[in-house]
Each structure stands twice: as structure tokens, then as C-alpha cells.
């Protein structure tokens, strides 16, 4: 085994970047440490918490469960790019209005997971919102406000059965 590095070229938030990387570098660490895109958070590093959720060729993935070297030629979108494009603006506004974040650690992953849910299911029920976010942990809000925010953003008016 060697400590050989590989040349990696990919597109991040619409910008083409080339770096040399060690194979063991995760995509999440690559985004944070090489590109200084620190909105992608690293929580559990085992795919459980969802804080590192990014888009890979248009679909949400865990950036901790992919090595950067595997992303050769890929299109990656992070919370920074998705914020700048305005794609998440309505969700972000709804999160703000509903106090759907406290410490903010889970929020980038929550927003990307929520946007992905709404892409595949534009009017989810509250139950479907909860199922859609089941892979993203929040240790502050108790989820209720997050579900409220997503329901508001997509105009879902259904009340939660108590």
C-alpha cells in the first residue's frame, strides 16, 4: 500500500475544481477542508445523522459515505450553492418563521433532504414529511417545528392527528 494521491476533477456548485486527494479523504472532508465549504457538516461519519447531506448528480447522498476520489467528473451541490441559487429560499424562510432551527448543525442536511422530498412528492402529508426526514437527526428542536416549516413551505394544510 502506498500513500499515493489521485488527481480529482469535479464540478462543485457550478464551478470546476481540480485537486490532488488521498483516496481515504471523504467527500465531506474534501468539501470542508479543501474547498472551505463548511456548510456541509460532519456529525457521525457513518451515514446515520444526515448532517453531511449534499447533492451528487442531482440526488441527495451522504458526503461521509463516499470518498472524494469517487466523485471524479460528478456534479456536486452543497448548501452554499443551493442557497446562492435561491432554490431553497422558500424552505429557508419557512424554517426561520417556524423556529425550525436552534443550533443549526442539522439545518443544511435538513434543507437538502426536505427539498429532495418535495421534488419527489410536492404535497406530502405530515406523516410523509416525518418519514422523508427520518434519516436526518436534530438534537434541539424535537422535529415538530421542522415538520411545520416544511408543511408550510409546500402549502400542505393538513393538521397533525394528535
Amino acid at each position, binding site marked *: 500500500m502506498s500513500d499515493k494521491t489521485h488527481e480529482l476533477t469535479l464540478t462543485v456548485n457550478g464551478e470546476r475544481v481540480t485537486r490532488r486527494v488521498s483516496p*481515504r479523504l471523504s467527500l465531506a472532508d474534501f468539501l470542508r477542508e479543501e474547498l472551505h465549504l463548511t456548510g456541509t457538516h460532519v456529525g457521525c461519519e457513518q451515514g446515520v445523522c444526515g448532517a453531511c447531506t449534499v447533492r451528487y448528480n442531482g440526488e441527495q447522498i451522504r458526503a461521509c*459515505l463516499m*470518498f472524494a476520489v469517487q466523485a471524479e467528473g460528478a456534479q456536486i451541490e452543497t448548501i452554499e450553492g443551493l442557497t446562492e441559487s435561491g432554490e431553497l429560499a422558500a424552505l429557508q424562510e419557512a424554517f426561520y418563521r417556524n423556529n425550525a432551527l436552534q443550533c443549526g448543525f442539522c439545518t443544511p442536511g435538513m434543507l437538502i433532504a426536505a427539498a429532495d422530498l418535495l421534488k419527489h412528492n410536492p404535497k406530502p402529508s405530515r406523516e410523509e414529511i416525518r418519514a422523508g426526514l427520518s*434519516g436526518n437527526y436534530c438534537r434541539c428542536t424535537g422535529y415538530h417545528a421542522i415538520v411545520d416549516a416544511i408543511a408550510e413551505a409546500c402549502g400542505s394544510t393538513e393538521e397533525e392527528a394528535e
Partner: protein
Amino acid sequence: MKSPQFDYVRPNSLAQALAILAERGDEAKVIAGGQSLIPTMNMRLAAPSILVDLNHVPELTGIELRGKWLRIGALTRHAEMARSPLIARHAPLLASAAPHIAHAAIRNRGTFGGSLATADPASEWPACCLTLGARIHLASCSGSRVVPAEEFFKGVYQTALEPHELITYVEVPAAAQDMRYGFDELVRRRGDYAIVGLAAQARVGARGALKLFRPNDQRLHEVRLGFFGVAETPVLARRAAAALEGRPLTSEAIQDAQAALAEDFQPLGDLYTSAEAKAHMARVLLGRVLTAMSGGHSA
């Protein structure tokens, strides 16, 4: 935690991948979706000296109907399984199982073949393959072979795969009109590994000339009940299936199958759920799945 160092290779053909494995298979790991392998590497439970990335091997992709069999490439993602019209039409059991696998972000990366090769006792695809009588196709530099699902799973994370072999594709019998399927699992939270799960199939009514005489025959045949999360591998509950064979799916037949289940297996308890609780949950789940298959509603 971060993975230890390794060499990385990205073959572009099956022949290339197999040649690398022939040379370095003992120290290599293949990576497809990586959704189980990377956590294992990050926790330093696996430290392959070389990682063979299969994501650019075109021979491992695609879903295709070939005669009476549906052929599923090992690299097919869980998300592709969930939305494929071919899977929905010819393997409805797999279509109903797919949304239960982990979370959307994981389903976008994790693969069908990877899940079989990992052989987690609580995962969905191994049990589905067992129930359907799938044929698992393996290849190495020295040739290819076919292993029936019933002989593939050997233990917790243990399979019939040799270090120099890959799963190339899996064949499942294309669903005939008279087949019925049922799938469900009990979990604390959507997307978690199942505490107990069940993939079920049965054929309803007579076949061939007999069908002319018994057009409304609702009796079950070829009943197969693949449980997961209860033992070191997925298991077929043969006694419970035998209790249903040749009978219509009445509440009495369902109760008999539930009673017979105790003779099929004594579940293994785990950190969170005792063996007794799992045995109870398996009985409840069997009742729910069979009731749903009979077209009824279960409490």
C-alpha cells in the same frame, strides 16, 4: 473517525475488475454503494489495502426481462429498484420492499448486489431473494457460477462469495398472474434496520387444465415465507408455510400458520429486543402480511 489508508483503483470493465481481484483479492475490498463498507472502514473494522471501485463497470448495470426471469445487475441502486417499471411489473415483491430500505440518501447510493454481498441479517434484499428463489450469478477470472439464494447466505456477513469473486447479476422468476406477494417489517423508526421483517409469496388457485374446473379456486400453493432480523441469515419458515399449503387464506389458516411459526425458529435476541419479544413480533407480522395478502385489513 476516518478510514485508514488504502490504494484505490477504478476498473472500467468486468474483465479489468476480475483481473485486479485475481491478483489482489485477498487484501482487496470491492466498493459499490459503500453505504455499509465505508462506515465499517471509518470505524476501523475493515482495513482493505486496496479498494476496487465497481461504479464504472458497465456489465454490472441494467434490469432486463429474459424469458421467465428478470435479470437485475448487481450495481442497481435501491432507488432504481423502487422506481423501475420492470421491477414493479415483474418483481412486485422487490418493488414493495425497496422503500423500506434505509433513507432516501442511502437508497440513492446503495446497491442491490452490495446488499446481498454484505449479508446483513436484518436487511431486506437477502430475504426477498430467498423467498423468490433467486439465482445469484458470480464471476471470477476462472469463470462464472450460479448460486441459489438458499445456498448463498452462510452467516452474519458471511456468504458463498470467494475473495476473487463478484456478484454480476441476480435472476428472479418473473411474477406470473396467479402469484401473490406480501412484504412488511417492524421498525422503531422508518428507515431503521428491521427488528423483524417478512417477504412472502404464494400462488393462488390451480394451474393448467385444472383451472378450467376450478375457476374460483383460492387455495394457496408454493407458499414461501422469508423472515429476516430473526437469525444469522434470512430464514424460510417452512412449517408455517406448510400450514397454509393447499388452503384458502382464511383467518383460521392464518392462525394455524402463526401457531406453526414457533416450530420454525426461535429468534435471536439482540441489544434492544429480547428473543421472546421478537418471537411475538414475528407472529404478529406474519398475521399482518397474510391478512394483507388475503385482501383484508388487519388491526
